[in-house]
């Protein structure tokens, strides 16, 4: 798949990966062996019939291909871009044994983009209307998937979103250059065409409560409130000016379009040398956004080694290509400010890897006396998020587990409260967009079973 060259792309927020042409897609689809018992589909969290849609592409029946994808996946343009296919469908491809697996992710994206470019109104006819009203809290990948699947079954689905735009992490978190917001918007429009209603500026936990939803006649509630509360390191200097949580940096840049300031009104204040702390996809996104906002040098600071970084390999490669420097086995100790309260440097210490910890990764240990000072003027803390507390505080009846995440039955996504299901980052065990979507799908199925 073609990409914008690193030299060009660091100067814009346009999409980095450019997708495939019809010719390239057909050629790639032709490589597929169309296994009788496809392992790729078995490894897809949203159960797409992969060989069948690839076969349609091979036969140049692109409208057929997207229909097959959409039988299971309401957000193909999103998934084709941000799914870690290398760990899922593509990892299971039998062609791995001979060399390269089929590039399933890019083919999915191709089918989705083909539809967006060629069909103005592709609507699905919902045969059966059902009376039950279902509330979905949060319009991120888990909520949207659950909402879409239930709407297709004929239920009345209302999605409540706290922000002014639907999409959750797809709009505030993932940058434009990885996932254009126009794609998210169009896929949400598709969900609306299925009958899903989205109410923005509506905070469940404030404007209404779980009890009130049931009193208003909702039969089931799905909680997909995400992990919106940013974690900080609790080190000195963390509240200095130009220390941002990754959430703040990304929300300003993505949701509020601060990269188009002053055409858009939301500002961002980025210096010349940016240290991004963390090793996940959010850290990679933060680093690449900082670079595009005009930083001259961007460093990723991570306390373990590159091998342990949780980010997708592709994102690490993209970051490196763009000139972002990885400083591994490094732990920030304190952030140093100038007399006006702005960041002027950061003190770090070197680490080495010891025995594996409970996560199976080798535990980083401080090397005594290895402290050093980095010359940076901006720090972005991307060390993780925990569930947004607004809804949870207002809903004490929900049983929470570790890190205040909602406990659910992994097969049905049911919580301890009757009629309440949950999925995505608000629950234990999910982390990627596709994992959240898988949870939304499981929940929709269980909800349907409970109502029929």
């Amino acid at each position, binding site marked *: 798949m073609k990409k914008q060259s690193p030299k060009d792309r660091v100067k814009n927020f346009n999409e980095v990966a450019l997708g495939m042409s019809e010719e390239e897609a057909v050629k790639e689809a032709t490589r597929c062996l169309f296994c009788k018992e496809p392992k790729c589909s078995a490894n897809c969290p949203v159960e797409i019939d992969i060989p069948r849609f690839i076969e349609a592409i091979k036969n140049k029946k692109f409208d057929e291909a997207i229909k097959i994808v959409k039988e299971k996946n309401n957000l193909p343009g999103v998934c084709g871009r941000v799914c870690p296919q290398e760990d899922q469908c593509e990892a299971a491809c039998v062609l791995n044994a001979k060399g390269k697996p089929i590039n399933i992710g890019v083919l999915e994206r191709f089918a989705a983009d083909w539809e967006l470019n060629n069909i103005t109104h592709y609507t699905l006819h919902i045969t059966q209307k059902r009376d039950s009203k279902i509330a979905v809290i949060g319009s991120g990948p888990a909520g949207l998937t659950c909402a879409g699947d239930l709407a297709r079954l004929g239920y009345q689905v209302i999605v409540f979103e*706290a*922000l*002014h735009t639907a999409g959750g992490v797809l709009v*505030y978190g993932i940058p434009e250059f990885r996932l254009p917001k126009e794609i998210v918007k169009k896929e949400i429009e598709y969900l609306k065409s299925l009958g899903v209603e989205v109410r*923005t*500026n*509506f*905070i469940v936990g*404030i*404007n209404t409560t779980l009890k009130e939803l049931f009193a208003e006649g909702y039969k089931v509630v799905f909680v997909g409130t995400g992990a*919106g*509360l*940013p974690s*900080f390191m*609790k080190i000195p200097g*963390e*509240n*200095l*000016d*130009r220390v*941002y*949580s990754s*959430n*703040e940096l990304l*929300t*300003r840049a993505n949701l*509020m*379009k601060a990269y188009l*300031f*002053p*055409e*858009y*009104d*939301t*500002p*961002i*204040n980025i210096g010349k040398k940016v240290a991004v702390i963390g090793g996940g996809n959010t850290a990679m996104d933060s680093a690449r956004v900082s670079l595009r906002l005009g930083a001259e040098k961007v460093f990723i600071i991570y306390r373990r080694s590159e091998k342990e970084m949780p980010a997708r390999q592709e994102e690490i490669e993209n970051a490196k290509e763009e000139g972002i420097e990885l400083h591994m086995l490094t732990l920030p100790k304190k952030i140093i400010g100038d007399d*006006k*309260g702005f960041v002027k440097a950061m003190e770090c210490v070197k680490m080495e890897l010891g025995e594996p910890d409970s996560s199976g990764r080798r535990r980083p240990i401080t090397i005594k006396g290895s402290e050093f000072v980095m010359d940076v003027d901006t720090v972005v803390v991307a060390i993780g998020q925990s569930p*947004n*507390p*607004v809804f949870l505080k207002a809903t004490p009846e929900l049983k929470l587990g570790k890190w205040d995440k909602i406990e659910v039955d992994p097969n049905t996504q049911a919580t301890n409260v009757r009629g309440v299901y949950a999925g995505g980052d608000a629950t234990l065990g999910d982390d990627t967009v596709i994992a959240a979507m898988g949870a939304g799908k499981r929940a929709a199925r269980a909800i349907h079973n409970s109502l029929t």
Partner: protein
Amino acid sequence: MFKILSNEKIAPAVFRMDLEAALVAKKAAGGQFVMIRIDEKGERIPLTIADINGKNITIVYQVVGVTTHKLTEKKAGSALEDVVGPLGHATDARKFGTVCCIGGGVGIAELYPVVRAYKNAGNKVIVIIGARNKELVIFKDKLSKVCDEIFVTTDDGSDGEKGFVSNVLKRLMDSGANIDLVYAVGPAVMMKVVADMTRPAGIKTLASLNTVLVDGTGMCGSCRIEVAGETRFACVDGPEFDAHEVNFEEMMARQSLFKDKEAHACKIRGILQ
């Protein structure tokens, strides 16, 4: 869309806007705020709820940057793209005894529902409001009706007594007014002076903080502030905190993060020069 019912200038660079926002009004109480966004390209800014009437809310804003300038241009009958809230904790208006509510500048407007709530809870409420000059003293009559006693100060002495709100507070404390609780809302420096005055006297003091916000729901951490040695989020943990424990120096420094950007945006639009 949220319909604007009125948008009037009530003092130099200070406007009062009444908005139809039924969902907000239904659950709103004193001390809470809304986030608003004017249009597609707008930023989200926090504004404290200054009054609630049926389906409508009142907000009072001072023109300080691009967004508040754009707000002044909105006519009654037009609408704001987004209004969400009520956000933050409502004021815990129990009976304390004698409560002294202090407002500075545009912060005065935010006092009204708070004063009313303390009064309704059976407290004796003393109000002290301060502004630079007479023209900037707002809500005096409105507040007079819901409190037991009101004092006005102006920097130049053009209304009430010359000086600062803290002068009146000091005098009240020295004269043996048994104040059980002080509530302060206004410029950070005013709240700091008040806190420094009540701390040695051991008078419980609350400050309503006006930090920089983006989402207002605990998501971004832009509003974080050190309180009692710990980082708290003004949006979801506040906006009211124990004023004796707030790191006001840090708050003032954090308020300056976007000053240059804001000045630039104003300059290229040719406003607020």
